[in-house]
């Protein structure tokens, strides 16, 4: 394992400190417990948005704290949901009197820890609502699983709900638009290489020189299926099939197409993927009106990518286009 780290135990603390130092114009960082809040938090009268989860998915979530997106991000240990304490502290720090929305990715650990924090916040008189992001179509949402996972679609939920909050929507309305995005967004990913959790020191799975994992999550966990390496276009087809079948998307739909790098994939490959994904959507009669390409929801240094498709409408498009000013997503100001 070769990493640019000091003591593996300090990875998250040091990275959070570095993030705070690098983006002091946008955020304030609290350590012990670790959380990152908008520089101007709490914003009086505005619904506060809090997300969080295990570290190792950067820029998610800290890179999305700022105007027009999250009010706070709570980083846990690498690939480990944060405990309720920092979630509670972040919730209090961003409560501007209009309530707080927790945007939670659907993993048992995240759900349970955010649940506890929400209960504690409620006990302190803060109105908290939660939404569960579960966009990963690689996992069937059935009684026999923990349900679908939340992956890169989370970024879109955070951006759009953040825009709704910053235009003054109330807690109900922000939660409703977040649920709307969740209902309309689907993702699926592929890994070419595994990743190594610093404290584990070994990859979470191994792949032969000609193997790839289809349907991976974002925690270095193995996927659903292991296949031989294929050309990029064929891999794109494999991911887009289940995505497009799931909602289903229909001809005439306007969509946002996101190609998300898992952390170790060169951008040049992401654009090769984007090119074919856009072709496939066009062939299905879908119009790609908004795009996002880059590393947004990563798995440390994993090579691979995920494709996310969001069915847009006028409201979602307007909220997507609204100004955002965070470390990782920025436009309009």
């Amino acid at each position, binding site marked *: 394992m070769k990493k640019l780290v000091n003591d593996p135990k300090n990875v998250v603390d040091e990275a959070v400190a570095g993030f705070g130092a690098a983006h002091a114009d946008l955020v304030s960082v609290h350590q012990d417990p670790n959380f990152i809040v908008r520089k101007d938090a709490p914003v009086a009268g505005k619904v506060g948005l809090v997300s969080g989860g295990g570290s190792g998915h950067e820029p998610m979530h800290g890179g999305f704290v700022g105007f027009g997106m999250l009010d706070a991000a709570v980083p846990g240990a690498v690939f480990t949901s944060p*405990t309720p304490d920092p979630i509670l502290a972040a919730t209090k720090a961003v409560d501007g009197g209009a309530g707080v929305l927790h945007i939670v990715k659907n*993993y048992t650990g995240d759900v349970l820890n955010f649940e506890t924090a929400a209960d504690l916040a409620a006990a302190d008189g803060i109105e908290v609502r939660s939404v569960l992001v579960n966009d990963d179509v690689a996992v069937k949402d059935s009684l026999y699983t923990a349900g679908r996972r939340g992956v890169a679609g989370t970024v879109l939920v955070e951006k759009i709900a953040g825009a709704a909050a910053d235009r003054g929507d109330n807690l109900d309305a922000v939660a409703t638009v977040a649920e709307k995005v969740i209902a309309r967004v689907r993702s699926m990913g592929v890994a070419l290489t595994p990743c190594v959790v610093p404290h584990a020191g070994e990859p979470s799975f191994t792949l032969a020189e000609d193997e790839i994992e289809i349907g991976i999550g974002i925690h270095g966990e193995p996927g659903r299926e292991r296949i031989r390496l294929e050309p990029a276009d064929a891999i794109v087809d494999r991911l887009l099939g289940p995505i497009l079948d799931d909602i289903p998307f229909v001809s005439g739909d306007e969509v946002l197409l996101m190609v998300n790098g898992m952390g170790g994939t060169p951008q040049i490959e992401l654009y090769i993927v984007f090119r074919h994904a856009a072709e496939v959507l066009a062939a299905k009669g879908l119009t790609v009106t908004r795009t996002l390409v880059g590393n947004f929801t990563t798995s440390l240094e994993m090579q691979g990518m995920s494709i996310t498709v969001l069915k847009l409408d006028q409201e979602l498009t307007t909220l997507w286009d609204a100004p955002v000013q965070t470390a990782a997503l920025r436009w309009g100001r």
Partner: protein
Amino acid sequence: MNLGATWAKAWIRTSADVMSEHRVELINLDREIGDGDHGENMDRGFQAVLGKLDDLPADAAPGDVFKLVATTLISTVGGAAGPLYGTAFLKAAVAVAGALELDGAALVALLTAARDGIVLRGKAELGDKTMVDAWTPAVDAAAAAHEAGANDLDILIAAANAAEAGAVATEPWVARKGRASYLGERAIGHRDPGAQSSALLLRAAADTAAA
């Protein structure tokens, strides 16, 4: 050893040692069918508990020990295991609240409450390939041993044995809860890390009672 606060603290101290010792083993189990952090999570949590045990008042009851374990695990472990073990110890603390020394019935009540807490939070059923598959056999074995007139130590040994067997039994299963459920058939052949850490914990309980 009588099952008073001294035992409760010894149990937790031993558990901390055991989690450190088995950290890599638990990480490896979790790498296979999860995300590779379970050993790190348990080690971090129990080390944090260790740092707080001495702050307990001299007259602390076992329930106070378990309450401290609960709140510390909840606030330091994270992931799925943090809330689940935290709730287990919280419910266990309530179940034995006030008692300065635990008898067989209290032991069974403690284990039952812990298991019920895990089920309450995690909604897993027997056979879902989770820590419940260690705890439920342990509870059943403890209850049976108690009914058969076994002493405290033997109740704990029965529980530990059953938990170990339960953890082993998860190996051939598909998972229906937690991260391993994403893997479908590919979880087959791997032991559930949480069931394994549960078995370690209950073995520590028996070992310290034997001392």
